[in-house]
């Protein structure tokens, strides 16, 4: 079987859940080989990659890769496409994943499809486009297909193999080192699950009324072990940090359960959560468009409904 090259998404030693989803998806297409850029691939990360079926992990751990964004990764990926001739390249639909894929596509004369939610064994890709309202099936017809997969679309299923590590050297051109990373600013993450990866998301909008109001949203989230999201109205007002924004210009989420509180359901917000499996809405305006998406909705004041819900969940657990 041919190799399928998977670009690992990680932050230091912390492997992103989407990486396991990518490896799982790759197993249907060939033999998963992981490309790991930068540091962090220790024994335990290697084992965790093997737990999902990665046979080999190619590591490029050099200052060129760590100190410059995107372009070095694209050079390495393009050169591996040339030498390995994989059946496909799978990357995450993150900023880095899409851009490394895009640049490698140009270098290697390969077609690229972004934001896949499923990949069939014949490499037909399913996408949910226009904010999730249309389902498209498409296929790359030139070169090695480069496919970016949305987090949370494929469930990661363990299949234990022993992954071997191979350090590969990289000759990074000067042209790929034109931009330098002078500082990485990591925002305190806290104990909640990663928003884009979470199985349950509890979001608050302008109806939450202020930063303190997010207390009730966080309490509900914690009762469900959920991630907290926010509408742009809430992040723009500074009530909740920007990286928790859900929507067209924020994160795209596709959890099993999405609870929208005090959010009207503007098209830009819906674009980021429309593919959630079950949607619950709490809003005091019965005309709010978000109710169109609701599997279950309550017209009411979130400050009455949400704490009662949290209390009930805590008791029933």
């Amino acid at each position, binding site marked *: 079987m041919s190799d399928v090259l998977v670009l690992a998404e990680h932050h230091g030693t912390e492997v*992103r859940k989407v990486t396991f989803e990518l490896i799982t998806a790759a197993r249907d297409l060939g033999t998963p080989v992981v490309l790991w850029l930068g540091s962090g691939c220790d024994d335990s990360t290697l084992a965790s990659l093997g737990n999902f079926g990665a046979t080999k992990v190619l590591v490029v751990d050099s200052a060129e890769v760590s100190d410059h*964004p*995107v*372009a070095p990764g694209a050079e390495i990926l393009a050169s591996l496409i040339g030498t390995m001739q994989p059946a496909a390249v799978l990357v995450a639909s993150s*900023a*880095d994943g*899409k*851009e490394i894929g*895009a640049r490698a*596509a*140009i270098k290697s004369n*390969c*077609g*690229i*499809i972004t*934001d896949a939610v499923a990949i069939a064994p014949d490499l037909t890709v399913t996408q949910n486009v*226009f904010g999730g*309202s*249309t*389902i498209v*099936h*498409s*296929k*790359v*017809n030139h*070169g090695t297909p480069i496919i970016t997969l949305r987090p949370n679309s494929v469930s990661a299923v363990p299949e234990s193999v022993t992954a071997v590590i191979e350090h590969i050297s990289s000759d990074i051109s000067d*042209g790929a080192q*034109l*931009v330098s*990373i*002078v*500082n*990485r*600013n990591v925002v305190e993450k806290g104990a909640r699950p990663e928003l*884009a990866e979470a199985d349950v998301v509890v979001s608050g909008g302008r109806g939450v009324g202020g930063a303190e109001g997010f207390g009730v949203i966080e309490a509900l989230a914690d009762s*469900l072990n959920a991630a907290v999201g926010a509408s742009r109205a809430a992040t723009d007002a500074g009530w909740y940090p920007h*990286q928790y924004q859900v929507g*067209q*210009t924020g994160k795209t989420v596709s959890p*099993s359960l999405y609870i929208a509180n005090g959010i009207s359901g503007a*098209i830009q917000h819906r674009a980021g959560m429309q593919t959630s499996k*079950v949607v*619950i809405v709490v809003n005091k305006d019965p005309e709010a468009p978000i*109710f169109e*998406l609701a*599997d*279950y*909705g*309550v*017209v009411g*004041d979130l400050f*009455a409904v949400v704490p*009662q*819900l*949290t*209390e*009930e*969940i805590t008791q*029933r*657990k």
Partner: protein
Amino acid sequence: MKIAVCVKQVPDTWAEKKLKADTSTLDRESADGVLNELDEYAVELALQLVEANSGEVVIVTMGPERAAETLRKAISMGADAGIHVVDAGLGGSDAIATSAVLAKALEGRDFDLIVFGSESTDARMSVIPAMVSERLGLAQVTFAQKVEVEGDTLTAERVTDYGFDTLTATLPVVVSVVEKINEPRYPSFKGIMAAKKKPVETLSVADLNLDAAAVGAGAAWSEVADFAARPPKAAGVVVTDEGAGGTSIADYLTTSKFI
């Protein structure tokens, strides 16, 4: 400073929303073409940099005849000139071909900065800026929430999954911006009047010395097999809170096995 801003005409998102309320299928053809919202932030950044450092802003678009309105709209915010690549052979171009056209249109014009929105609201690929930078061999500083230029050094904050990275590069640089970066201005009446007289260069594929076979639907490196409207969601249950709204949601979550 000489700055290019690439803008795209996209179907109006709000018109789409109205349609969805009445019909279960999506008809994008009938939607008005508007300036991609994210690209307004790109224009605003360029205008602010030129106001602070002097220079010139050129709006660049690839699109059908009617995209000329969008080009004028962007110019009316305060830009100096436009470049419109329009050619019947361009219809159906994928990101690979679009980036080839934009790169050719931008090449050799000595831009210090080429600014993009971080994504188009219709394609939502977020790949064109990276592809253009790859093709032109220029520094790529994308998903920027903050951009500063001092002399020939650009410093920016790239939004990441865990916060942001501070990046530096020497001009010329390809930039894409996220909507947190600024508050785009509205075109003034004066701007709208002035835009009518600003020079717009119209270029065809042949003018760009591009092979006609390398662009358009026939040259796309991916093809759509089929598409369908997502089955409409079955109408859910909506109740009015009379004191037990929270409990009723908990009941729903219990029945659907979330708790």
